[in-house]
């Protein structure tokens, strides 16, 4: 028995040390886990402050970007003669890359409304370039602008720019930073300004009878013919475009020949080939009566080419500007039986424009077609209202 008691003493001491080690290790691990898992006092408040710092930093960037954008917009607008690049159809054409204000009797000075629109357009386009590169907060909101004095542009986001409070809202992910493509900024719906409405009214007063006659003869809506004239020549029967299209309906030579406004001289007339010249002995494009009749005929043909589509009229308008082949190719690219104009215009890419060589010309034409359709549609609606009195 004594032998057993003596042997038990070291076992007890060693057991005590081992037990202490286990208890303390467990306690330390538990405490560590608890310390880390329980939010520290002020943690949430700290996160709110940190989020406010991020927001403040983003706001500073946005302010600075807006300052730069507005300043650049003034330069851009001046460079483009008060118009939005070369997308504007109201200008007198482009010479050496600059929009002209006068061409052969036509006057196209940009009004104050035009300049305001151009400034806000460029401010927005420039701002988007800047905010696109800002990674900390998604700043790609919709912004609106107003010009409150000749040199002050003010703007603001349409809705609050939202950002989650760091860590507190773990399940909310910041949206991927994206910016609408420049092309998307092209006017989809054209709000005709007061000057445009006045111009359409004059067209109705001066040419309403002829437009009505062409409409009855060819079965084409009068307001469509009126809207096209407003867009093409502003009702000026002597308008000439930089590309050589002439008259109230701006017929270019080959189409003018097709619709009896011009003659053709050469062995290749009426077929493919370069050996021909148009409008040599006959050029009736400045004859507004004949031009309006030819416009009616041409639209009858174009509307007939898109008779199976719901957006028949918009396809015809786009074809008048870009050519029937281009629009048909864009329709095919959608892969749909009856695509909308929005779907077709999204598939209208520079590679479809085969009659220009330079990429910039092709890209500009694509932009022009999209804007053209919006504007003709806008003028058409105004003509309809005017005609109804």
């Amino acid at each position, binding site marked *: 028995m004594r032998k057993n008691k*003596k042997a038990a003493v*070291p076992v007890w001491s060693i057991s*005590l040390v081992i037990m202490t080690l286990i208890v303390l290790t467990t306690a330390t691990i538990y405490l560590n886990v608890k*310390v880390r898992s329980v939010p520290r006092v002020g*943690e949430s408040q700290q996160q709110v402050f940190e989020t406010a710092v991020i927001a403040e930093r983003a706001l500073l*960037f946005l*302010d600075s970007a807006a300052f730069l954008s507005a300043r650049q917009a003034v330069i851009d607008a001046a460079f483009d003669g008060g118009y939005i690049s070369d997308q504007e159809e109201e200008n007198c054409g482009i010479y050496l890359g600059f929009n002209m204000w006068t061409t052969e009797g036509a006057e196209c000075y940009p009004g104050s409304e035009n300049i305001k629109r151009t400034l806000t357009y460029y401010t927005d386009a420039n701002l988007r*370039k800047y905010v696109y590169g800002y990674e900390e907060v998604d700043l790609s909101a919709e912004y609106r602008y107003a010009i409150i004095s000749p040199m002050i542009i003010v703007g603001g986001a349409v809705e609050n720019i939202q950002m989650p409070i760091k860590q507190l809202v773990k399940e909310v992910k910041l949206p991927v930073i994206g910016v609408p493509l420049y092309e998307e900024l092209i006017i989809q719906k054209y709000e005709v300004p007061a000057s445009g409405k006045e111009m359409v009214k004059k067209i109705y007063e001066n040419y309403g009878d002829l437009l009505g006659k062409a409409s009855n003869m060819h079965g084409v809506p009068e307001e469509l013919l009126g809207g096209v004239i407003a867009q093409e020549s502003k009702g000026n029967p002597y308008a000439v475009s930089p590309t050589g299209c002439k008259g109230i309906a701006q017929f270019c030579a080959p189409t003018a020949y097709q619709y009896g406004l011009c003659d053709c001289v050469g062995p290749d007339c009426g077929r493919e080939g370069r050996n021909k010249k148009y409008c040599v002995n006959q050029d009736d494009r400045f004859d507004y009566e004949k031009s309006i009749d030819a416009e009616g005929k041409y639209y009858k043909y174009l509307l007939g080419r898109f008779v199976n589509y719901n957006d028949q009229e918009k396809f015809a308008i786009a074809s008048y500007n870009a050519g029937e082949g281009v629009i048909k190719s864009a329709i095919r690219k959608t892969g749909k039986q009856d695509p909308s104009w929005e779907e077709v215009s999204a598939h209208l890419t520079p590679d479809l424009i085969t009659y220009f060589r330079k990429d910039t010309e092709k890209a500009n034409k694509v932009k022009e077609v999209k804007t053209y359709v919006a504007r003709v549609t806008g003028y058409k609606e105004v003509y309809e209202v005017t005609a109804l009195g």
Partner: protein
Amino acid sequence: MRKNKKAITAPIVDFWAIVAFILLIILFYFIIRVSVAEGAKPMEDRAESLNAYGFLNSYLRSPVTVDGREMQISQLIIDSHYKKDYSALKQETEKMLDNLRTSVSGWNIDVIFPDNELSVHTYTVAFRKPELQATAILPTQDNDIIKIIVFKESQ
């Protein structure tokens, strides 16, 4: 002999067991203390960083008048890069720091342009503690960025 050996071994084991017990207590006391302190430390640093940002924001939003034009320092920074003339910025920044030096000493400002670095500070700093530093960026007209850093020298 066997009996004697056992009698000596037991007290030695007891002694070392008590020593180990005390050492364990001391060791774990320090482990727990350090881990609790470590858990609390980043919070203080984060609060310091807020102070740094507060100073940076005040600096960038400070109104200044240059050539008769009223603007904020942030605009002056962008303009300086645009004109490649940094004298007004340096002058205005130094003026502002001089005004603040009595109450907010030790803050330094670096403005890093895409092609140039402009440091405006009171004295040379050996190294910067990240938690005593705040950064903001401003855009440039050529789609680059200007980085503005305020920092405090490490004590």
